[in-house]
């Protein structure tokens, strides 16, 4: 398995266009720890931004701040050019109708069937007839390879299928911006490729913007046009590397290289706590 970027970096300079997401000096404190520590990033239209980092580095927290689910301690977040920190619920609603979010667990409503779950945003936010909504649901389920599963409940399908239904739901209203939290965890290699292909098609051909949190390096290099890595330990919540996939591959940072190659030996500490292991084990320090 080789890790190679799928696209050569032939991107047109996008400096003149307005960024879709602009995060500036973002800080978030949770339980006395800085989980997001001075993050600044810009995502332009058509980009696929990959957020990488070890478990507990604050990837999901960063994502949840950007979608407005939790408030940052300080800093600014602009989506579609509008400042969302301190926005009222109604205003935030107007913004959130323009993006889709794929949760790590899928977060499908267990009391509804697969079809009703995908139809939910359509029925709530547009005035289309039920027949049209049914048609859209079929199209979206076809995209993720789940035609014919409309009438099953989420409890009756596998974890990977739930994830794909959740992706279909996130895409139901044809969002301009898609957030995915671990979109490919729990999927088999073929389905991973299908979901990756779908993301690439939507971003490269239709100009959708994607922000993807992932651990899956193959998938990250396949779909990403920009990447950032968040640090753990002393660098908790800080961006330790950013750039295009090529730049990331060439980046000499040993922590980054260990992460993308998935090596057990390296500078990333296995234990977050410091001090003598034996002493700690015996409780004498």
């Amino acid at each position, binding site marked *: 398995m080789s890790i190679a970027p799928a696209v050569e970096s032939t991107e047109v300079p996008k400096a003149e266009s307005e960024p879709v997401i602009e995060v500036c000096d973002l800080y978030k404190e949770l339980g006395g720890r800085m989980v997001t520590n001075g993050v600044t990033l810009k995502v332009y239209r058509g980009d696929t931004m990959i957020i990488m980092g070890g478990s507990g580095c604050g990837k999901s927290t960063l994502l949840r701040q950007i*979608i*407005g*689910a939790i408030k940052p301690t300080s800093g600014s977040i602009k989506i579609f050019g509008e400042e969302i920190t301190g926005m009222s*619920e109604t205003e*935030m*609603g*107007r913004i*959130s*109708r323009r993006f889709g*979010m794929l*949760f*790590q*667990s899928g*977060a*499908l*409503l*267990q*009391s509804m069937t697969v079809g009703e779950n995908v139809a*939910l*945003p359509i029925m*709530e*936010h547009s005035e289309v007839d039920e027949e049209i909504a049914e048609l859209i649901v079929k199209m979206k389920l076809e995209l993720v390879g789940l035609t014919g599963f409309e009438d099953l409940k989420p409890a009756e399908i596998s974890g990977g299928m739930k994830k794909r239904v959740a992706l279909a739901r996130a895409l139901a209203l044809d969002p301009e911006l898609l957030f995915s939290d671990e979109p490919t965890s729990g999927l088999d290699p073929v389905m991973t490729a299908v979901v990756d292909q779908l993301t690439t098609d939507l971003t490269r051909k239709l100009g959708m913007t994607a922000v993807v949190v992932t651990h899956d390096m193959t998938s990250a290099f396949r779909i990403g046009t920009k990447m950032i890595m968040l640090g753990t330990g002393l660098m908790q919540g800080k961006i330790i590397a950013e750039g295009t996939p090529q730049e990331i591959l060439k980046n000499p940072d040993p922590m980054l290289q260990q992460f993308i190659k998935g090596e057990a030996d390296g500078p990333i500490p296995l234990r977050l706590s410091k001090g003598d292991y034996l002493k700690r084990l015996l409780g004498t320090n």
Partner: protein
Amino acid sequence: MSSYLHLNFSVLYWLVVGPFQKQPVKLRHVFEQIIRIGVEALPMAGLTAFSIGLTLAMQASHELGKLGANIYVPNLVAVSLLRELGPLLIGVIVIGRSGSAVTAELGTMRVSEEIEALGVMDINPVRFLVVPRFLAMLIMLPVLTVFGNYLGMVGGWSICRFALDMNTAGYIMRSVESAQLADLYSGLCKSFVFAWLIITIACHAGLRVEGGAEGVGVATTQSVVHSLLAILIANAVLTSLFFFF
């Protein structure tokens, strides 16, 4: 406490203002909840009310029989059911059966990120989840209470008819004579207030769950305990209002 009041206000807000913002409460969701909260509770509520009517009649005849006043058993059964035991007992049954289920369901939805997902889709959880349950409870608890009152009186009748040799027509006559419409209304007024308390406490507890399966358990216990206390206190307050005014 302030978040509880806030929930009450937002329920009323979505009920009144929602339809004008093109975000009405879907009737289909209300009917689904009517079935789950109300209709499925019918057998249990009926059985409880029947056995209470039965025991009331037996206990009453035990004392009244000594005075040769067994003829007043129907009066006692009818009045105590309509005014007090009907609304209260059905309320307790619904707390145990439906209130706890609502808290556990909403709590589980919160733990599994479903409520957060609704928020991200700009679907207000209060409008989408709480208001249909609220309406269903406000409709179904009084309905269950009326149903319970009838079955309780049937329980009383079965003792009067088969153990005290009273005839059926006589039982009905005495029940209807003794019970005023005001008795029924005061009972229904109580059950309306109980319904409000039960469902808002249950939803509030469910929406605030923190920390996994254990959190859901804690919230469900709390919801049941708080609802029970709330309806017992409300019952005392309402009874004294009706008694003194």
